[in-house]
Structures are given as C-alpha cells and as structure tokens.
C-alpha cells in the first residue's frame, strides 16, 4: 500500500524522539553513565560503546575522556628525578618529521665540540600534522604526544611556535597521560638495566677471578658511568656560565627563570594528578 514505507520510517523517528526525550528527562541521562562530575556543570564523559539516547556532548562544559593513545602535539620529557632533559639532540625526530616542523640547535662547548643535548628545540604547532613519527622513532623516549588540544591563540607567530620551555613537561605528567605505555617502557628499561648490571657483574667477577688468580688480590668491579667525571664537571661549568650570562643580560634573573620553571612543572604535575583521577574512572575503580 502506498505510504506504508513512509509510516514505517516515521515510526523509527518517533522511537528516536521518544528515546532521546526520555533519556534527557532522566536525572542521569545515559551519556553520563560512568562519567566524572567535576562540579559546576563540568563533566568528563566516558561514552560507553553501548550508549543509547542522546549521543551529543555539551562541549566545552562536557568533554570526552581521551584514550591513552590520543595524539596531538609532541612534548619533551624532563626527568624530574635526575633533573635532566631526556633529549640528546640526536635529531632523529627532525629527520623523520613529514612536514619538517621540528628544528633543533645542538649544544656545544667552548671549543665547538657538540654535546649530547639541545640548546634550542622548536616545534611549529601550526605545521605539525600529529603523525607521531617523532615519538615512534625516538631512541631515548624523550619526545611523547601531549593530550592538550585547546591551543587556540590569536597569532600564529610566535604563539604557535613552541620553544623548549613550552614543550618540556615532567615525567610524571607523561606517566599520567600514558600510563600503560609508560609502565611498558619502565619495565623494559628496568630489564635492560638489570641485564646490563648482571653482565657487568659477571664481567667483574671474571676479571676479579682472573686478577685473584694472577695476583691473589681481589679488585673492585669497575663502574660504568654514563658520563665521565670530566664531562659532568664541564656540563656543570657550562650551566653556571649560562646562568651568569642570563643574569648579566639584565633580563630574567636566575631565580626568576627557576621560579617560572618550577611553577610550570607544579602546574603540570597538578594536571597529571587530575588525569590520573580520570583514568581511574576508565578502569572502573
């Protein structure tokens, strides 16, 4: 009969209308299931795969819980325990970058000898295509993807050209954003260190046995420092010189710069705690 198709279709729209209407009238609509209430109408929404009713989210009050692998703009990892940047300025990220939006100045000492750290590191966020190749190919786990996506600014230059200070985040921040991957990396690192330590112990034991055999006198296992004492001294001298130069410039004093960095790192750590709280929600704790 002419019109039955229309009526059946209208039945579907009626069902949808009733479902969403009903859902919206509930004190807890289906889209709030398992969400985190931040107060003041702000929510982090989990959006379960079997969600029914109204699927739209009231951004910016309501935001989706981002999956761990979400990638936006890269960030550089600052190891807060060791108080050093993980980046060694090897330049692999700049080489694999498809739009070539990373550029790095490798640091060098007074003699012009290159050092294993960057003095400048920039990412043009307006050009970055969020492909994550820099992260994939970094051999030092020094560059990771940030989840921060609200980056709107009034001018592309210089606000969207991120320098090292803007890119650097503490390790805790990364650990909170990428807990699974961070755990995997730490396990791998521990295993490698363990393996290295065992190899060195064995080597030392062999050496000791040899020496004991030769001179009947035990010897200590030689430590394998990451950097030689001379190199460390050199680094310390350079840092001091840099700080002095900054202070002499009359710009930001050493204390100001340190304070600014400290404030930023604290802020990021707070963010990390907030994210860790959201994560718990995802795991259903």
């Amino acid at each position, binding site marked *: 009969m*002419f*019109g*039955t*198709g*229309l009526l*059946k*279709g209208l*039945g*579907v*729209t009626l069902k*949808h209308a009733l479902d969403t209407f009903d859902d919206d009238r509930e004190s807890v609509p289906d889209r709030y299931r398992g969400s985190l209430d931040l107060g003041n109408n702000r929510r982090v929404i989990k*959006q379960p*795969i*079997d969600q029914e009713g109204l*699927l739209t989210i009231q951004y910016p009050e309501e935001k989706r819980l*981002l*999956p*761990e*692998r*979400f*990638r936006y703009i890269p960030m550089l990892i600052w190891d807060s325990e060791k108080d050093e940047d993980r980046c060694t*300025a090897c*330049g692999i990220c*700049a*080489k*694999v*970058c*498809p739009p*070539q939006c*990373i*550029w*790095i*100045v*490798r640091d060098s000492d007074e003699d012009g000898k*290159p050092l294993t750290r960057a003095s*400048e*590191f*920039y990412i*043009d966020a307006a050009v970055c*295509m*969020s*492909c*994550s*190749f820099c992260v*994939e*190919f970094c051999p030092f786990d020094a560059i990771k*993807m940030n989840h921060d996506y609200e980056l709107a600014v009034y001018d*592309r*230059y210089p606000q969207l050209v991120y320098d090292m200070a803007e890119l650097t985040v503490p390790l805790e921040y990364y650990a909170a954003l990428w807990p*699974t991957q961070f755990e995997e990396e730490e396990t791998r690192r521990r295993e490698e260190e363990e393996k290295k330590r065992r190899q060195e112990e064995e080597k030392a034991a062999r050496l000791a046995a040899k020496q004991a055999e030769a001179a009947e006198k035990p010897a200590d296992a030689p430590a394998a420092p990451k950097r030689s004492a001379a190199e460390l001294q050199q680094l310390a001298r350079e840092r001091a010189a840099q700080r002095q130069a900054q202070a002499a410039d009359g710009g930001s004093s050493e204390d100001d710069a340190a304070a600014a960095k400290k404030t930023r790192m604290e802020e990021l750590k707070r963010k990390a705690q907030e994210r860790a709280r959201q994560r718990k929600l995802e795991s259903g704790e």
Partner: protein
Amino acid sequence: MSQATVVAEAPADELDLGPELADAVEGAWAEDTEKTYVIAPDRILDVLRHLRDVQGYDFLSNLTCVDYKGYGGKLRADVDARLEIVYNLYNTRRGGGSIGLHVRVPEDETVPSATSLYAGANLQEREVYDLFGVKFEGHPNLRRILLWDGFNGHPMRKDWQEAYFEEDVKPFRSRHPKGEYAFHEDKIPWAKNTTYPAGWDPDSWQEPVAYVPVSQAPHHENEPHLDTESIVVNLGPHHPSTHGVFRMLTRVEGETILALEPEMGYLHRNHEKIGERNTWLMNMPFTDRLDYLNSMSNNWSYALAVEKLAGIEVPERAEYLRVIMAEFTRIVNHTWSIGFILNDLGALQTPALYAIEEREMILDLFEAVSGARMMCNYMRFGGVVRDLPEGWHEQAAYLANERLPRALDELDTLLTENEILKARGRGVGYLPVEDLIALSVSGPMIRAGGLAYDIRKAEPYGIYDRFDFDVPTLPNSDIYDRYYIRLLEAMESVRILQQALRDIPEGETLGGRGGYTLRAPEGEVYSRIEAPKGELGFYLASDGKVAPWRYHVRSPSYINLNALGPMSIGYKVADAIVILGAIDIVLGEVDR
C-alpha cells in the same frame, strides 16, 4: 542484469597482440617487470583497441605520466625520451591483474588521446596535461583541470620548483643540528612569488565561461512551441550541496540540464609533488588527508603498494587488523554517504544524524587504537603500528555483532521503502553499466549497475580470500540503487568483521624492514584496493633512493567524476545535486 561475481582467473602469460600488431611492442619495460610493455607512440591506439575489443580489457584503471629527467637508476640508462605515459588496463569480466603499457614521449611531442576508446581517459589525460604538459591529440577538452589557467609551468616535471623551494628530498639539512627554519610570513610572498606563462596577462584575461562542450550543447527540442533560451549556471563552488569546494558548470534550459562540466582544483595542494619530496614512510600520514573519511583504507592501499615494490611480508595478526580497520571504515563511509545522499534529496539532517551515530562509536574505536579519529596513520610497511589496547576487541565485537546490525536494519526500515525516496531516486541519473565501465567508474556505482566487480574478489589482496561474503548488486543503475547498494555493502562489511574478529590470531603486528630508512628497490608498481568509494590505486616508481621517484594516486572520487556530466544530462537541476551526492566524492581526494 545480475550476474555471477567476478573472480580472479589466471590471465594469459604473454601479451599476444597477433601478427598485425607485433611490431607495435618495443619490448618489456624491464626484464623482471611482469606484463608491462613499451608501445610505439603511433601504434598505442591500435594496441588499446585490440586489447579492449579482442582481449576484453575494457577498464582503463590508471593513466598517468612519469618524468624521467635526471633519473639515476639503471633501468633507463639507454633511453632518451623524457616522459613516459603509463596505462593500466583490467578486464572487468574475468578478474585478475592488469596489463601495463608505457609510451615513451620526448619533450614537446604529442600523444594520441585514448578518449575515443576509453571515455574515462578524459579527466586523467587532462590531469597529465595540466601537471606534465603532455599534449594529447584528439582530446575533446584539453584544458588545465587542477590548476588555474594563469599558472606558469607544469609542476610535476622534475625541474619545476615550488615557491620557497628548499631541497629536492626531505629531511632538510637545515633543521638539525643548526636548527634553521624560515617562516614564510617573513618572506612577504605577495606579488613576488607568482609568475605567469608567456603572453598571459592577468588583467586582460577572462575566464572562458562558455567553452566548447557547454556552449555547443544541443538545444532542447522536446517543446518546439516554446521559444526558450538556455543559460549557463554555476552550481558552487561555495555551496553545501557540492560536498566541498567544487563547481558544476551547467547549461540549463528551464530546469533541465543540457550539459554539465565539473570544475575542480580548489583544494589542490599537489599531493603528488609533496609525495616525491617525502621519503617513503613520510607519505603515510599524508595519505590520511586524501579521502579524509577513510584514512584506514588509504593507509592500506599505500602500504600495500610499497610492500609489493619492496617485497615486505606482513604478519598474520596485522593482516586481520587491516581487514578489521578497512571494513569498519567502509561502514563509516557508507553510513556517511547514505546520510548525505538523503541530505541532498532534501531529507535534511535526520537520516544523516541517525546514520552517523554508529560512525561516532567506530571513530572512538579508531581513536583508541591509533590515537586519532580521522587522521589515523595506523598502518606501516609490514603491518600496523600498534597492537590493540586492552578491551578494544570486546568493544569491537559488541559493535559488529549487536550494535551495527541493529543500526543498519534501522536505517533500512527508515529509508528503503520510503515512497518519497523511491519517487525521487528511481530512474534518475541512469547510465548503463557498460558506459560506466568505459568511463572508468568503479566501486559501488558499477555494482549498483549490476556488475558484480569487487577487487576483494576479482583480485584479492590481504587475506580477503579467507572470508565468506557476497558482492551485492542491484540492476537499475539509478540513484536509488546507488543509495541501497551502500547499505547492502555495509551489511556485508559487518559479516566480514564478525568473521575477522572471531578468527584473529595472537602474534606480531609489525614485520621488520619498513622503517624510515626504507629504500625501495628500483622499479615500478601499480597496486589497488577496493576502497569504500571505489578503486583506490597507487602507482609508484622508484630509483632505489630514499624517496619515491613518482608517487601517483589513482583516486576513485576524481575518476568517478567522469560520469557526472553524462549522468546528469536530461535531468533537472535538483537531480544533479543528488547525482553528485550519489557518486560520493570527497574533495580532499578529488583535488589532491
């Protein structure tokens, strides 16, 4: 007309053209290259005619050009001709692989146009003319297509350099360790980075609005007693119904379309030139931006081509993951396209919003596995970049087994029997399937015309030969069938997903050798997949270096537009909008 599904059969071993054409073949293109032959330029039409009429190679899939100026490889050590036109032909009744033909052309010489034999060569030859400057003799409308008329030079030539040219191939040496970077803003480009062709004046030039095919369109003679006048109307470029920045130049008489010409290139960024500047791996995230609704299948097609060229193996689990992602993306595409066909018909938003609810869930899954909803960048040479996160498989299985079948059935109830949709769609935009094949149209469009040609069956890639699924066909070749075929295909995708998610084994997801230092061996490859919009192919040529020598995308959206004009003639303006919608184009892929 419904017929058995086309499956791959073993094609003939040798190119046998018979005694008359034996002298047309100058030889195989390379010793170890299968079924690629060099043909004398003046005999190419005879060879094409023979292949089409006698051997049944009725589908001109790919027509492109390669500029070999400065080529460092061994394969062409003793060849002088600078340019090579490449043809890839398929048999749509028998399945199986392609026959490749090359024609060597010295600079400034013309090639006979294939448009008289394969109407689908139209847009592809125009693109070659635009980007390489090769002139095709006998082409009905040889104008620039992606670039504007005042553009100086032909950008795909190896000696052409873009504004702010830095180096031939990335990575640029300036970035590390000295860290130099020049902002284009600092260079003040206005008025200084534009050169015009000789004799071209921007002030006196006028756009040829009424050029040959539109201005000479036949006068409508059905109503002789009315003294009507036909006028030229532009639909677009800025209009929601054109699905992006795209222009339909039409000549109408009243509401009836007498001639229609697609005008494109507004989103052109010379993807292929960028592809030649990039290293092999760098192109992967750029393919996301072609058909930005289906980045997963774009990734797969490119990865497949490079794997074929470099001989890279893919682990079992990665093959399953690729199928899962590609079929999810097909559902994403088809629900989106169904929604927007209905939008174009005037059923504003309701079907579209219902259709993309499930798309939302699939995009959430893509985001969880790859880190991005649309620009997935998930596949690598030799597998996929990461394994599934915890809990992903259960969610995907829930979608494939419960939510998606239910949602597609609901769409079916909502739309398929709808009398308004039938009245608007039945018999509109009709073109027989033989014409569609001649116009190089592929994908759901030809299956809605009754030809069960699907590359997943006709030339299986990946592990598609292991799954039990059908190739749905519909007989009428109108926009109603083009709507319905997409729904049926999405249902078949659900079947494949259920099997793949059930059978997926544990194991590695990424084989070795496909990293950023890849140097593909010298040679060429044309590889294609059944993307949601049709046949997505990549033609790659390598000279054994870090970057592709030639990187060409055979994009279904672009080539399917061949049929837009022929399909629209005689219908109303409002129908032309839906006819375009039912081709299902994405301008990121059309303009490249």
